[in-house]
Structures are given as structure tokens and as C-alpha cells.
């Protein structure tokens, strides 16, 4: 909620995710957890109380038997560009949009854990720390110093690996540059993806692969009808996959699995 004041040459960081290249290995999820000091689950955690800033869903075309086909869709904070539902609802400004980067940030230290933002987010991309963070003895040595571990009772979510943004910024200053080198700022999930399905970059820079991916004809965004202008673009050549972007449950896929 801060600073409409300053007009910086705005970057609009976003992602383009090629669904047809994702094989659901889960590297992005664990890389994210490593990068952002997300603790392993306690014994009682389930997929409903889990903590993972990016979550790969296995979706299917709804058909039964031989016609049934699946795809993997990584869902993370969509960094809504307009009327982000989570920002305006936070009672104490723990959520903000950085006008310089377009990143929707969540401040766990400011958060009181009311979870209103979670109710507001249509993408279920916000996660709550139901447990105290706990790492097996010794493993806390492997924590990333660029990200502070969160305490129990607060909400957290993807911030495009903001620790890396800090590091890239510092490096740019050290090198006497004003802008960060795009090669220095790549979120952990993008870096980790073995099949190169995720691209990250400045959507305002038409030359980036991300911006190009966003403009592809088979590109879509999740729940665009809500008008939140998400900055995560997905691509798929399969019609039934593209249908998941709209709200109603897709009709049973008629598309042939071949191709």
C-alpha cells in the first residue's frame, strides 16, 4: 500500500510457464523451499496444511479410461497487476505491491495471521504457517541467509525470490550499474526447472523470452475474468489445458490425447 508517490521506470516481472513442458518432477517446489527457508512438514501436515509457495497441480481432461489425459500446472502467486485481491484486504499493510517491480510482497513480520488475504486469493497461492518452523537438528545450517525464516501464525507466499533481487541489486551497485543484470535475478524455481518450462523476466521488455511467451496465441492466464491482471502466463497447445484458465469446470475434454 506504500508509495504511489514515486514513478520509477517500472519493471513488470512475470513468468511464462510452458505447461506442455512440465513433467511434474517437483524441482521447482523443493528449490523454492530451499531458497526461501520453508521448513519440512511436521508429522500432522497434509496437502491442505502444507507450506509451499509454488505448487504443481496435476490436472486432467476429465475423461475416463483411455481418453483420460493429464498435465502438470505449477501455480504460484500470480502477482496480480490490478486490484490484487490480497492487497486491499490486509488490515495492517502487510501486503504491498512494489511499483518498481510489480511484485506483490508479503511481510510476515507485519502479519498478524488473520488469513483474510488467503480467503481473498482466488489462486490459493497463499500459505499459512500452521506450525512453528522446525528443521531437523543440524539442518538449520543449510538455511539461506538472504531470506529470514518465518514464524508460526503468519501468512507467506511467493515473492519472486526477493532475496535474489536484493543480491542482484547489491551486485549491480558494486559494479557501478543502476539496473540489475537480468542474468543475476532468476527465481529459484526457474533456475531449478530441468525441462526449462518456466521463464522469468520483465514483461515490459518485449525482448525477453517471458514477454514473448506471454504474447503467444496459446498463452493464457488463470481466472482472467476476475480482472486481476495476473503476471503469470501459461502456454499450452492443448485446448483442454487452456480451458482450465476459465472458472467453470471444463467440459469433459474432447480433444484427442494424441498430439
Amino acid at each position, binding site marked *: 500500500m506504500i508509495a504511489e508517490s514515486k514513478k520509477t521506470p517500472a519493471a513488470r516481472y512475470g513468468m511464462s510457464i510452458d505447461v506442455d513442458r512440465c513433467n511434474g518432477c517437483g524441482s521447482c517446489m523443493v528449490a523454492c523451499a530451499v531458497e526461501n527457508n520453508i521448513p519440512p512438514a511436521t508429522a500432522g501436515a497434509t496437502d491442505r496444511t502444507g507450506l509451499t509457495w509454488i505448487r504443481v497441480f496435476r490436472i486432467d481432461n476429465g475423461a475416463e479410461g483411455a481418453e483420460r489425459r493429464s498435465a502438470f500446472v505449477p501455480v504460484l502467486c500470480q502477482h496480480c497487476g490490478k486490484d490484487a485481491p490480497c492487497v486491499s484486504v490486509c*488490515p495492517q499493510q502487510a501486503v504491498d505491491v512494489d511499483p518498481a517491480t510489480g511484485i506483490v510482497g508479503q511481510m510476515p513480520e507485519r*502479519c498478524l*495471521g488473520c488469513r483474510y488475504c488467503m480467503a481473498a486469493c482466488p489462486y490459493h497461492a497463499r500459505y499459512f504457517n500452521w506450525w512453528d518452523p522446525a528443521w531437523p537438528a543440524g539442518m538449520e545450517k543449510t538455511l539461506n541467509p538472504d531470506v529470514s525464516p518465518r514464524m508460526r501464525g503468519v501468512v507467506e507466499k511467493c515473492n519472486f525470490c526477493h532475496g535474489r533481487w536484493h543480491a542482484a541489486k547489491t551486485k549491480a551497485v558494486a559494479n557501478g550499474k543502476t539496473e540489475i543484470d537480468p542474468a543475476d535475478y532468476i527465481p529459484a524455481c526457474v533456475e531449478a526447472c530441468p525441462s526449462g518450462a518456466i521463464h522469468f523476466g520483465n514483461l515490459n521488455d518485449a525482448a525477453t523470452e517471458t514477454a514473448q511467451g506471454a504474447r503467444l496465441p496459446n498463452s493464457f492466464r488463470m481466472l482472467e475474468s476476475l480482472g486481476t491482471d495476473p503476471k503469470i502466463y501459461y502456454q499450452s497447445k492443448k485446448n483442454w489445458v487452456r480451458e482450465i484458465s476459465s472458472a467453470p469446470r471444463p467440459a469433459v475434454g474432447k480433444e484427442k490425447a494424441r498430439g
Partner: protein
Amino acid sequence: MVKEMDKEFITRGVRRCSTPRFLLWLAPWVGLLLFGAYSAGLCLVKGLNQTNMDNRYAFGLWIFVDLTIIALGAGAFFTGFLLYILKFKELKAVINSAVVIGVVCYSGAMAALMVDVGQPLRAWFTFWYPNVHSMLTEVTFCISCYLVVLLIEYLPIVLKNRKLREIPAFLVFEFELHKLIYVLAGVGTFLSFFHQGSLGGLYGVLRGRPFAFREGIFVWPSTFFLFILSAAAVGPSFLILTTWLVEKITGKRLAKDRVFQMLARISGILLSVYVLAKTVDTLIWINRTSPSLGFTASQYYDWKPFGTWILFAEIVLCGLVPALILLTPRLRARRAWLIPAAALACCGVALNRYVQTVQTLALPTLSFDKFLSYTPSWQETGTVLGVVAYGVVVYSFSFRYFQIFPEERELKIEVRPQAEEEPALAGRF
């Protein structure tokens, strides 16, 4: 003498049961209260993993109960508004009861909210760094302020206690405060109008939840106004219900029938206005709001057991039907109609709050997501039961030691002839 230990605290001329009997009545409630405190303590010490809430059901039983009891506690502000601002003098007979119910409901809801947030130690951040655009900020500010106002309104009731009033300072303070109470009633009305509304707005503004999202009127979604209306409508009904319940439990007559009738009429009128507004709102939502966000309204009701019957139950069964009963003088004159109608109205508002909170979260938004249900854990349930027990205990104390129903002494004689057939519970409190 143990039996009448607290005699000097009891209002002159009213009949209250013996001290041991009162303690006996309190014992189970205090037990429940302790259980609630233990449950809440577990949630505070060990964290919200003690609940069955999850990332999808980020809000659960507690928020539903909070919304419901605050709606039911609306009798406090609305009766105050009618009595002190609109000068409905008859309501003096129930204003104290309304204030006690208000205190109980609001403080109970606040307590539950403190357990509900993940980091209660930081709750003051909302005041210190408020995001004035958030409905929850409005709710927090208004509820806290209104709770303070209610406690101040409750103060004269306490100070008017027979024993406390012998202290000159209390006596004059009560007297002077009571003379200014209309100011507080006015402030309370303003605050509670807003927070009832902002509680409605809480879900109505959620663009990401098309089931709850509503079109805006000025800066507020329509649910803002619907919540005010529905709370104002059921507040009197809940007062009828509690007064009747206390009458049944104590075997006394506490308020004149005239008061019941007036409350019923007010409730009936407002309820019918509410039902009308709710119907219009629902139609706009089905035909405009929801489709514009890419959702067809029918799909919300495709999931068992959340069918369209809920909509019917909310608007017709628990809205229109009690409204008609409460508006018909012949029907509402009879307890057999009046009480069920009041109860239905209260159920209706509870159902509305349930739909707004729980059903909203149960419905998937992403097309590949599932419809999820949720069962509260015993810790959650225990906390809620603790809040209920707290309410009963506070109300029992207030009823025993303070003058909650000023007409009670006058009405004492009317109930006398039935003394022989007093119900088994008679004489409690």
C-alpha cells in the same frame, strides 16, 4: 448463613434462588468455560495447528460464530437506538438485557478473534499501521470501539447494584453517566451500523471469490447494507428469544407483553425489508455480478450438500416466513407462534453468515480445484462452547445481581397464581 450469603447484593423485591443453588447452576457452565479456556490455551500456546482449518479453509467455525453472535448481539445497538434516539420508551424494559447481551456477544467475539489470529501479540498493528481500505480494519476499529462503548453502557447497570450504589461516588457517577447515556447510544449506533456493515463487506469485497462478491454501492458492497439490515432485524428477535428463555428458566415474568409485541413488530418490519433487499440483491448477483466474473451462479449450487435449498431456507423459510408471522398481530400475540418465528429469524441470520463464510470457502475458484469440506476440531468447538458458557455465566451474574428487567417487580404479582405449577427450573438464578 450460606444460603443467603449474597442477599445484600440482590435487588430489593425480586426473588432469586439461594446462593448454593445459583452456584449449582453455574457449575456446569464454569466447567464448560474452563474447558473452553483450555482449548483456546492450546491454540494459543501450540498454534493454530490445533484447529482443523487449512490453507483453503483459512477461516472456519470461529469466524462463522463471530459473525453470528455479533449479528444476534445487534439487539444492543438497535434497542439503544430505538430507545434513546427514536424514544421508544417501552423498550426501557429490555434495554439492560440488550446491553448485557451486547457485552457478552461482543466480548465473546473479541476473545474468539484473539484466538483466531495467528499472532495475537501483534494484533495492535492493525491500530498502529491500519490499512484504511480493508474491511477488516473497519471491523477491528469499530468492534473494539463499540466494545468499549458497550462496557461503558454496562457500567451503570453494574453500579446500580444495591450494594455498590451505597458508595456515594458510584451512586453519583452512575446517575450522571446515565444522564449522558444517549450520547453513548448515539456513538454506539454509529459504530455498530458500520461494523455490522463492514462484517458484511468483509466477504462482499472479495473479488476473487465470486460467490461472495457483490456490486458496490458507494464504496461498500451490497452485503454491507444487507448485514446492517439483517442484524437490525434479528436483534429484537433475539431479545424476544432470550427474554422468553430466561422467563422459562427462572419461572418469572420479566417483561410486559406489550414489549414483546413491540419487539416483534419492529423485527417483522425490518425482516421483511431485509428479505426484499436480499431477494433483489440475489437476483442482481445471479444475473449480473457473478457472470461478469466468469462464473455462472448455478454452478455454486452443484455441490452436495450445498444445493439451492440453502438459498430457499435463507430467504423464504428463515426470512419471509418469520417476517410474515411477526407482522401478523394475531399470530405474534401467541407465544406458540412468536417464539418459533423469532427463532427462525435468528436461524436465518446464522445461516446467512454460514453461507457467507463457510460456503464461500468451500467452493473452488480454480477449475481444477476441489470442493472441500471441513470439520472443526474439538479445540475449535471447545473454544466456541467456552464463549457460550462465558455468555451464560456473565448473563447469569448480571441477572442475579443487577436490575436487568426493571418490570420484573411489577410483574411479580401476575405470575403468582401459577406458583403451584412453577416449572422445575423455577427459582434458578
